[in-house]
């Protein structure tokens, strides 16, 4: 069930990401919803789940958009794994730690992704810092809000159901 939910979240994120691909800021995607989902899976289920989720999500994302299959997958695999490791070592329930985690994850992902592209002489990223910083902040904000919503929503629905039941 949990695996299914994770898979569904990845698919949803991918669908949303591809839909929002047209909504960009200065030609750069401001947020990476797939990365946010991978981090959330790692937060909730640990390093192995983060690793598998990252691999799957990254490879699908690569297949959909990137010229080389595996570069995004490798970046998300490592980010998912490390996020899971951090989640097992530290308490990351508050918004601020999660914001920090998402920012760090974005930077690491960008470093691996861009680094590999540059290393293999496939693409250049002149002055990548502003876009990475923007994406990190965007991911952080959307991720923190999204995490809170996901965690708050089931309880809210249950409470409403319980309220209706009591009214009857």
């Amino acid at each position, binding site marked *: 069930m949990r695996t299914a939910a994770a898979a569904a979240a990845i698919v949803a994120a991918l669908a949303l990401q591809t839909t929002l691909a047209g909504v960009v800021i200065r030609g750069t995607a401001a947020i990476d919803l797939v990365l946010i989902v991978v981090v959330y899976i790692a937060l909730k289920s640990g*390093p192995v789940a983060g*690793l598998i989720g990252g*691999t799957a999500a990254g490879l699908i994302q690569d297949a959909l958009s990137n010229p*080389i299959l595996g*570069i995004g997958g490798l970046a998300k*695999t490592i980010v998912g794994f490390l996020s899971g*490791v951090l989640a097992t070592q530290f308490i990351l329930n508050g918004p601020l730690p999660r914001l920090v985690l998402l920012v760090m994850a974005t930077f690491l992902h960008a470093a691996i992704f861009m680094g590999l592209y540059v290393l293999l002489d496939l693409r250049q990223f002149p002055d990548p810092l502003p876009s990475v910083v923007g994406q990190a902040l965007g991911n952080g904000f959307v991720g923190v809000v999204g995490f809170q919503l996901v965690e708050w929503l089931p309880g809210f629905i249950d409470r409403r159901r319980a309220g209706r039941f009591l009214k009857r």
Partner: protein
Amino acid sequence: MALADIRQRPGVLLGAAVLLHVVLISAQVNTASGLPVLQVVTFGSFAEVQRGTTAAFDSVRNLWSGYIALRHVNAENTALKHELQTLQVRLQEERALAQRTDSLRQLLELRERANLDTTAAEVIAAAASPEFRTVTIDKGTNEGLQTDMAVISPAGVVGRVILPSGRASKVQLLIDRNAAAGALIERTRVQGVVEGFGDGSLRLAYVPGTADVKSGDLVVTSGIDGIYPKGFVIGTIEQVERGASGYHQITVRPAVDFTRLEEVLIVRTPPASRDLPEGPR
């Protein structure tokens, strides 16, 4: 069971995932020469294995012949080293002979200039203790040497004989802490006493603060001590400071390089009956 086991080892899983990704990426990327990276890396890696295997095989195959060749080379090397050592020794002998000839020529010139009864001696040993600045020479009472005879060299004053034995003598160098000599500044004829300081330098003491003294002035023996003949060079003034006691504090750099003493002249004329030569030598 196996899946659960892998979940217990996330590091292994990460390694496997990274490796798979690398292989996947390599399969798609071409090198600058247009060949797939995976192929190039695989070939390159295997070529290194092949290289290692070939090297090991060659080493084993050439071990015996290489050993014999090395033995031959070793013998040749030993013979050449021997020859080189012999030549180096011969070169040193020739060089020493040339230096000795030069040194003796200088001593001879000094003897003729000084017009004193002198005898040449060779320095055969230095002081056993670093606190005392003495040397041992190869002439003693058998050659007429006595205590307090002056020892000089072509460069200047060396010291005095303090302990003569039959075939050798101990010479106290002028730079010894207990050594002193009557001296004067050649330019102004101001007199003083040169004292050893123990550190290789000399001090010219008892020169009044009103006296005209400059750095670079030549200091020579005054002859008033009855040991050193008058007019022989002691050194040059290196530093002049006005002392609190009304005397100059003067540092003198010795003319003689005491670290390179090899041959010296001993003035055999007894101090009391010495006919002092005029003017600087």
